[in-house]
């Protein structure tokens, strides 16, 4: 079943990179003349939680939108588990095993939590046996702390619960790799701690995760590795402690005044 839903194999004879679940090579994305991503190459290790950071406008969201198939690629290639997904449709990429969340979840307010989760369960067409405990809407909702809200309308959910629902929706795609776009933005400290716990639980299901995040606390507590973008280029990558101590990263991310 997995084979039929996988994207076509890589065009060249490059073997699947060792431990990389997602490999981006020389990726360039431009809006008109402005290059939002300028030859970015990076790889995301399987089984890890990777933090994707960088100042506003550095290309984080562009990278997520591009690898998930929602922005056209001008140059370079994207491979998921060794298979080429460059230029594929978003729904195909979901079926190939990469799911993403949105920063501002906009779900139809007249749908219940159950109905929202039914969409990826019906359409993402993934092999459910990979997540045997999470193969139905009720189990996924309970896993994400939405059990009591299962039959509630999305229009009645709090911001935190909508964030949980966004993660639950992505989880219902049964992904191998999950991209979380600022899952904690705008949440209170207590709520963000809860969502962090949820992210950890998702990771324990064997799902690789990429987090876009502004909160350094989240990056340092959750991530195994950090990738830093600046002006559409890769600035640094490595262990959180090393990268965040890097002078160039501090200047780009915090501004020269703070870095001093």
């Amino acid at each position, binding site marked *: 079943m997995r084979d039929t839903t996988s994207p076509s194999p890589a065009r060249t004879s490059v073997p699947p990179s060792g431990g990389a679940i997602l490999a981006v090579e020389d990726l360039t994305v431009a809006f008109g003349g402005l290059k939002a991503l300028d030859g970015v190459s990076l790889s995301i290790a399987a089984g890890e939680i990777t933090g994707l950071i960088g100042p506003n406008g550095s290309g984080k969201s562009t990278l997520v939108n591009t690898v998930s198939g929602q922005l056209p690629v001008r140059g370079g290639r994207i491979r998921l588990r060794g298979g080429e997904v460059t230029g594929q449709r978003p729904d195909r990429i979901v079926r190939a095993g990469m799911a993403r969340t949105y920063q501002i979840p906009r779900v139809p307010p007249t749908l219940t939590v159950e109905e929202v989760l039914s969409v990826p369960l*019906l*359409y993402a067409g993934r092999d459910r046996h990979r997540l045997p405990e999470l193969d139905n809407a009720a189990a996924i909702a309970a896993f994400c702390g939405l059990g009591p809200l299962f039959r509630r309308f999305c229009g009645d959910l709090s911001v935190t619960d909508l964030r949980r629902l966004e993660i639950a929706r992505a989880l219902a*795609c049964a992904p191998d790799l999950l991209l979380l776009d600022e899952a904690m933005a705008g949440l209170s400290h207590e709520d963000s701690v809860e969502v962090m716990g949820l992210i950890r639980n998702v990771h324990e299901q064997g799902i690789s995760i990429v987090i876009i995040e502004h909160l350094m606390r989240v990056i340092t507590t959750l991530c195994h590795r950090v990738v830093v973008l600046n002006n559409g280029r890769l600035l640094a990558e490595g262990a959180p402690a090393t990268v965040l101590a890097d002078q160039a990263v501090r200047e780009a991310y915090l501004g020269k005044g703070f870095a001093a």
Partner: protein
Amino acid sequence: MKTGLTRLLPYVLILLVTLALIWIDKPFWIQLAIGVAITAITALAWDILSRTGQVSLGSAAFFGIGSYTLAIFEPLIGLTLAWIAVAVVCALAATLLGLLTLRLRRMYFAIATLGFALSMQVLVVVFPDLTGGSGGIAPPVLADGDPRWQLGLIGLLLLAAVAISDTLLGLRFRPAFFMIRTKPELAAASGVPVVRMKIFAFIVSGVLIGLAGACYGGLYGYVVPTDVFTTNWSVLPLAIATLGGMDTTIGPLLGAIALKALEEVARSVIGGTGYQVVYGAVIILFVIAMPQGIVGLLRKVGTLTGRRTATGEKKKERERHA
């Protein structure tokens, strides 16, 4: 949420009323019921399309294409194949228009579909050899011109439209359609093939309206372009679905009954052509007074009598702004 009984209500209602009218055999009531059924089919079809966020003002194009296809193909390939041709031609037109308007949102989509309907009317007049031009065309008469059998056939088509609408309100389609309407990117990120689903809804809607148009053309066996390609057939489905209650099956049905009843009352009380002004004004008042349509009003009554929670209404309200 919905009990089995209320789900069956539209089917029982249509069957009983159709059979009763055929039994009673009063021409006025039969003609009225035919009018209600045809407009109800177009309103259901319009609503099905709108559930994917595609607010069309092009229903008249499909209504006209339906009646003209039947008229043009019947002498060439016979009656049965001509009916199949109606479905095929409407499906092709829906696919084409759907693909062309794919990236247009809301108002731009509505204007583009309206333009399509208007240009179809011109196209018919430009090719008189094929279409009879402004002089009209003669589709085969439905059911040998017996109004009772005509009502029977159109009633069956209405039942089919109701069943299709209900299916598309089921768990397989409703959440995906609503997600496409609210945020297409979110639907795609959930594995929904957005383009295919939007075109699918367009085809279902276009074919239903086309079949209704072919039935309409077959009532008297004669149509002129202004009968079927008129903007009236583009606006009426929208007005009925809005008046009755969108995103439901019962809404367009109740809307069609209410609108036709209103039209008849206005015609008999005021008469002449002045009745249309009053009729239009009353529709506007109704829409202002009942923003959720008749279905919304009934829900509100249900709320007051304590059958539903008050929050149920707020959700509906929010959805309309979504």
